[in-house]
């Protein structure tokens, strides 16, 4: 029998090469780097987390490479509970693209979707985007913000734990209404 209380769909977006797949693989399997071509045939990854004694199953969807030529299917966004928009703190262009991604989110994702901005690769010493800049952008766009490194594992578990925690709260809030 399936042993969990809630199942949430989490989708990742962001430019190619910002480390979306690495984040997922680090979180679900604890490995880095995941190796080339490893994602062939993998639609989404599953991991169960525990929040206050409740088992929460996260179904984490990756872009399947469709972001490479900016050709994500709209149906990818449908029925997502949370959406993680990732940029690379050491690559300005990946940050500059965020508004374009947000436009797509506005158009196709549910208005109620939980939106999280993630600055990845904080382990690198050639940082171009200071934390305050990412933070300010997230506040302006009504998103949660966290900086991570899939390589040294910092904040990766926290990112998904917080998402799970937040989603349960929303769920409970709706129940009590």
């Amino acid at each position, binding site marked *: 029998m399936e042993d969990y209380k809630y199942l949430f769909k989490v989708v990742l977006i962001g430019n190619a090469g910002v480390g979306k797949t690495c984040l997922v693989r680090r979180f679900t*399997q604890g*490995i880095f780097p995941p190796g080339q071509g490893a994602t062939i*045939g993998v639609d989404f990854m599953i991991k169960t987390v525990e929040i206050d004694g409740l088992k929460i199953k996260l179904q984490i969807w990756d872009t*399947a490479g*469709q972001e490479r*030529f900016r*050709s994500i299917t*709209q*149906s990818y966004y*449908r029925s997502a509970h949370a959406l993680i928009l990732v940029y690379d703190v050491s690559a300005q262009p990946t940050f500059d693209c965020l508004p374009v991604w947000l436009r797509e989110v506005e158009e196709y994702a549910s208005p109620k979707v939980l939106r999280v901005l993630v600055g990845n690769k904080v382990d690198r010493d050639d940082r171009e985007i200071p934390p305050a800049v990412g933070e300010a952008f997230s506040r302006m766009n009504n998103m949660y913000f966290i900086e991570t490194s899939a390589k040294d594992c910092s904040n990766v578990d926290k990112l998904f734990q917080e998402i799970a925690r937040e989603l349960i709260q929303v769920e409970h809030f709706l129940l009590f209404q």
Partner: protein
Amino acid sequence: MTDDIPSPCDLLVIGTGLTESIVASAASRIGKQVVHVDHRDFYGSNWATFSFNNLHNVLGVNKGLTECIEETKKETYSIHIGLNSNTVLNVVEKWFISDEDVEATIDNQLRIEETNNGILKQTWTKSEVLKHSRKFNFDLSPKLLYSKGEMVEVLISSGICRYAEFKNVSSIYTYDNVESGLLPVPCSRADIFNSKDITMIEKRLLMKILSMCVEYETKPEKFQEDEMGNFGNFLDAHKIQGKVRKYLIDSVAMAKESTNFQDAVKNIQKFVRSIGRYGNTPFLWTLYGSGELPQCFCRCSAVFGGVYCLKRSTRSIIIGSDGQATGIMCDNQNLKAKFILIEDSLNPLATIKSGISRAILVTNKALTSNDQAVLINLPSLNGKEPVRILELSASTMACPQGLYVVHLITRQVTTAIEDLREVIDTFFSAVESNENEALHKPQIIWSLHFNINEYESYADMLPLNLYSSPGPNSSMDFDNHVIQARNIFKSMFPDEDFLPRVPDPEDVILEGSAEEVVLQESLENQEVHNVHE
């Protein structure tokens, strides 16, 4: 990251319509390298679904596509891809409500209360409708799935159904011209016996014909040679008249009097077998619109390594000295491929065969009690083509609460406006009429008419490794397209399985080190589990 598309590949697909997307996913699934391009900035080509704003952008863009540029290579020649051909034409958009918010909010509330006895009435303005732009999902080619048809089977057997959600069509109607009203079509055995519209004798006759048709292959002795001309003759031979005849022709067989007997029987079989699998009618509707389905197949292809690239102008197909297609010119890149599949409407060697007349209406009231999706099959009158109406409510994600999206579909004779005028006038009102009539006819808030060309191409005119795939037709279901996609795939890769089941993501075992980690983790999880017990 470079902007170059990988080349060469096994299969190059041009156009992201349904047939192309199915073939792309099937090829990726067996490990072929697939590159899938489209010059449009959206998925689905003539199968796409649009929000209000996107619809405006697209129909605007369609009118002025840029000219192709001449491009020839030594010792090869190239044929230009017909980007200029306007597949969607005669586009006419019309608003039937005022532009400004004339009604004050308080007034609105009053109106709602006034008509509280059953019908919730709300006054909409143009700006209010546009404010909900993204809640609308307008299909260029709305289609239904037979619950036991080819599309449902392939979605289930491949596992691709996980990308979409569906709702049952809640009821089916035909039109009774004697009593000038909609006539519900009883679908299940229980429906037939509970029907108050037909007599006991008629019920028995209907059941007899249905079971005869279902057993057509196994008990052919029940059929006389002379009955099997057209469907009308067959019904004559069995003295089927009145409403039962209407049910059978218009809705169950989705046919005309003159339809070939075998074709009608095939449809009846599909109809009867599909009933009861998911609900009381044989049909499913895709939430968020039919345009989701091509995208589901594209996602599957991408998951298995397919490369996706919208907004790439595909200018010409390059033919080598041996008469085989070697690749295409895509922007400034020469993409080489073993096989090429191009959608009919872009294929310069395809010709226009016929067309579909379409209208999309937004109305303020359901034609019948409808909280999901309703199909209305209108008979062909005075030699005209049958018209099908699909009315979608907010629960199908087609529009905001309180509004309805109505699709009208028929074969093109003149233009969409002319072909559908009579039907629209019969069922809908263009103006907000007095209360009494408003109780009968839904008011049109917005309408869009257009025609879609249907193309055909002859395989013997094309290089052997160049395939052309059909765009949407006027039938109400997807099954022909699934069959055609399978045939194209089988012709390219004769010994391969067509869309075998995708492994469940929870069962995928990843390479080397990962496997150990997974194992270790599952042990850890077990421990946690035990502690909690």
